[in-house]
Structure formats: structure tokens, C-alpha cells
């Protein structure tokens, strides 16, 4: 069997996204653009629970999005060489985004 864990993780991150996006939207929307200052963000980051939330949210968003793109590539690209190149590119880009996010969260 192949792809079982990948599929399961896509579902799990999907559930995390439903809850996470709700929290994310509420914060972004109701705190108002003028309130989201460096101070405000740093205050949030000093709380380990928010850090954990942001980390889980980041990983879920990147995995869910890029695994979805990979699915499209697997379906629409028939050339084996192009398929491999695109999958490597997607993986690299996903890794770069995760690394950037983790760096910001932990710096």
C-alpha cells in the first residue's frame, strides 16, 4: 500500500485548518488592521500556546496546500521527467516556506 499516510494527513490537516482558519480569521478581522502592530504580534508570540497554534497552523497550511498541488500535478502531468521535477520543486518550495515560518516563530 502506498499513499495511505499522505492521504490521512491531508484529512487531519484539513480538520485542523477548519478550526485554525476560524481562529485566524477572528483574530485578523476583529483585532482590526491598526491594532496588529509589532508589539501585538510579539505579545502573542511570547505565549507558548499561541506559538504551538501558529506552528501547527503553519505546518497544516503548507502540507495541505502543497499536497493538493501535488495531487493536481500527479493527475495532469503524464511526462515522468516533468512530474519528478515539479514534485521536487513543490517539495523545495514547501520546505522553504516552513523553514521561514519556523525561523520567524522561534527567532
Amino acid at each position: 500500500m502506498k499513499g495511505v499516510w499522505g492521504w490521512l494527513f491531508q484529512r487531519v490537516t484539513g480538520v485542523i485548518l477548519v478550526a485554525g482558519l476560524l481562529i485566524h480569521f477572528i483574530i485578523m478581522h476583529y483585532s482590526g488592521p491598526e491594532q496588529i502592530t509589532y508589539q501585538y504580534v510579539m505579545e502573542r508570540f511570547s505565549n507558548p500556546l499561541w506559538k504551538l497554534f501558529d506552528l501547527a497552523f503553519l505546518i497544516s497550511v503548507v502540507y495541505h496546500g502543497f499536497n493538493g498541488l501535488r495531487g493536481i500535478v500527479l493527475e495532469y502531468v503524464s511526462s515522468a521527467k516533468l512530474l519528478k521535477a515539479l514534485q521536487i520543486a513543490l517539495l523545495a518550495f514547501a520546505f522553504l516556506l516552513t523553514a521561514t515560518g519556523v525561523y520567524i516563530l522561534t527567532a
Partner: protein
Amino acid sequence: MNNYTFRIKRFDPENDTVPRWEEFHVEMAPTERVLDGLIKIKDSVDGSLTFRRSCAHGVCGSCAMKINGKNGLACQTLIKDVSFSPDTVITLEPLPALPLIKDLVVDMAPFFEKNDKVLPYLINNEPPPERERLQSPEDQHTILQSITCIMCGCCTSSCPSYWADKEYLGPSALLKAYRFIFDTRDRSTEARLERVAQVHGLWRCHSIYNCVEVCPKEIDITGHIAKLKSLSVKKALSGRKSLKKK
């Protein structure tokens, strides 16, 4: 009796490079079937019109085609259900996503090849009992819907995942895998899951429900595929020990 217009997508491999549309007018009763219209056209208007039909009673699956944009059986579709007034044109096209041979006839070989890949037969090497291998009514009920599949190809050729990925097993083959995996008399669940839980297998199903929408036997194909997905996850979670033994 009304005068109905049939707009048929035709293709003659000897003369056409691309398919062309042709209109036919037929006197029919609204309670007759689309297949009756096709037979009338072939008998009395144009004998070169090519289509498959065998049993004409919704059992063989030969006359599957795209009727007014939706896959279905011509023998199971009444004129009054696709043409609400005599002015409404009845559009007929071959099944999509399969190689076109002539007019409404497509090459079903790629479809049947996918079916062969899931080992579509009972595998049980235990010594046979004196009489038949018994099955309880409850066990029979689990696979009852999947057994009613007539393999007409409506589902697989309506699946957007199959349109994009011709290597994808497709809803029909996955349903066939379900039919044997969940058959209590069968002993080859692991070998079949191995073939089905693959990049071009289960995970290409995105629950689009086109297959359920068009199935002339009204089988909940997407639901059956979901059960296969969940079985794969359960097997993966409980470890691969049982897989390695076989």
C-alpha cells in the same frame, strides 16, 4: 406521437478527421426510450449510424452513452425524461474519455484493463467444502450494491479524475475491488489493497460524486470507495505485519 429531434455526434474514421453533428427527426411516443429512437433512425433513415446495444433492458450495459450531457443507458432513458417538449432536442454523444471508434461506439479496452488490475475474481485457496461456500444474508448485504454493477462504463468515463489521469483505476474498478475485498468468502484482501491503495488508485478519488450521479444502477460508488480508503487506513494503523505474512 410527436416529432422529436435527435442531435447525434457522429464520426466515421474512414472519412472524418473530427466528429461532426447530425440531426435526425423521428416520430415517437414520449414513453418510448432513447434506444428506440436510435433503432428507428438506423432502420429507416441512416443505416450507417453506429451504436452498441444488446439486451435493451438495462442489464448488459452496452448502450451507455452521453444523453443530453449526462452519461446513461439509452435503453433505460425515456424520451419524456430528456425531452420535456417536442421542441427540445435530444443530444447523443459517445462516452467521454475513451478512445472513439465510430459514431457512438468507443473502445472499452482501457476500461476493462483497469478492471483486470484489481483481480476481479474470487480467490480462496482453502479446500472447498462439501457443498458451496456459505455466506450469511448480512454478509451478502455488505456487497449487494456493488454486485449490481453492470460495468457499462458510465461512472469511470464521467469521472474528472479519470479525464485528467488515464492511469487512474477509476470508480468502476475500485467498486469491483470493494466487491471482492468485502466478500467474506474471499481471502485476498491484502493483494487487492496493495493494487488499489496506490498513487493512481484510491487517492485519486476526490469524492466528486459524478459516478454516483450517472450510475444507471444507482450505486453509491463514492461511498464504497470511501470504505476502501478507511480500510486502507485501518490496515496501515494496525501495522503491516499481516501484510508481510502473505
